[in-house]
């Protein structure tokens, strides 16, 4: 049987798993990056530049080539997806618990999130 306590517990565990995967990838990518470039002088020109074009497709592709920045970007993407996941879990729970208003609220936020992540990319 679903209960608010169970929902809270499941949500907490899912968030912890999501953030651990994201953090793990970012740490691994970060260490790789520092091993390769750590002793180089900081290139301020790059950090003051404007353009750094990126898309979800590009992130997935560069992560599979095992480039340090690719792995970090995949970790960041998972961090974003964790936010989406928490709304999705809530929407599902409210739906199962037949809570009409809250299924509607969380469903609305979920649709807006998916729309803004996909439409703008």
């Amino acid at each position, binding site marked *: 049987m679903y209960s608010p306590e169970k929902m809270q517990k499941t*949500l907490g565990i899912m968030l912890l798993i999501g953030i651990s995967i*994201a953090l793990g990838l*970012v740490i691994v990518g970060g260490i790789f*990056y520092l091993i390769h470039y*750590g002793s180089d*002088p900081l290139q301020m020109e790059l950090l003051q530049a404007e353009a750094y*074009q990126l898309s979800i497709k590009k992130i997935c592709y560069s992560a599979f080539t095992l480039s340090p920045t690719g792995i970090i970007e995949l970790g*960041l993407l998972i961090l*974003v997806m964790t936010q989406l996941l928490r709304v999705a879990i809530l929407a599902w729970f409210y739906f199962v618990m037949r809570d009409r208003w809250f299924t509607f*609220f969380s469903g609305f936020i979920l649709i807006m999130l998916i729309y803004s992540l996909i439409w703008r990319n």
Partner: protein
Amino acid sequence: MINWEHFLTIITFSVLLLFFSFLAGLVGALTGLGGGVVVIPVLVLLFHINIHFAMGASLISVMATSSGTAAAYLREGYTNLRIGIFLETAAVIGALIGALMTAMLSKTLLAILFSLVLFFSAYLTVKRKEEHEEYPTSHPWAIKLNLNGTYPLGKKLTAYYVQHVPYAMVIMGLAGVFSGLLGIGSGALKVLAMDQALRLPYKVATTTSNFMIGITAAVSAGIYFSHGYINPTLTFPVMIGVIAGSFCGAKILTRMHHRTLRLIFSIVICLIGLQMLYKAITGTL
């Protein structure tokens, strides 16, 4: 002026950023505002990094604080998920209206108005003495939507009764409009809506705000990624530091008195207000 950051190596820069991000995560977890409050000034003023990259890093830090604290605050029983989802809906609608109104309103005027709201909120936050308040009943909408809850006070769970739901909705709608127009986090107004309108215990307000800000930030993430504002080499120390800081913050919050938390929050939002006012006056919005 000597730009000292030109003499840094990447590893020194990353370690420095890790340290500041830890502080950001700590402050973010305690105030419910996310780590951006510290991350943006450090990156822009100290390291002279492009504002867009700073905003991207700030967005990541907000999601990291939100995720880093969410599990702990849910387990402890502080976060009120129903209030979070309900108010987030109002904020999203406000943000949509804000995005549509961009062309119609003066950003400078809004920024001045917003900074005044922040100063006033700081005053109200410090002034409230929640331990002297007693509400035997709650607002009818709170009963209908089942928004009332309990939170840990000392060693036992204490019930609280939600007040003035429509006021909170208006504040959240405005928070959305402000963030849609000014592109800044509306965390301060989220805490304000819950503390001043709903009359929630302060720790419930900040932890619920922490849960919500990650969702709000994710709404903007798509556009930040596609514009290239999220620079991985800059963001990785930020994310690691912020998560570590927010884990520690979540541990400390349970032991802190709400008056101390109120004071920290008020100082931080006054600083944001000053930053906003400075931007409005110098025309760098």
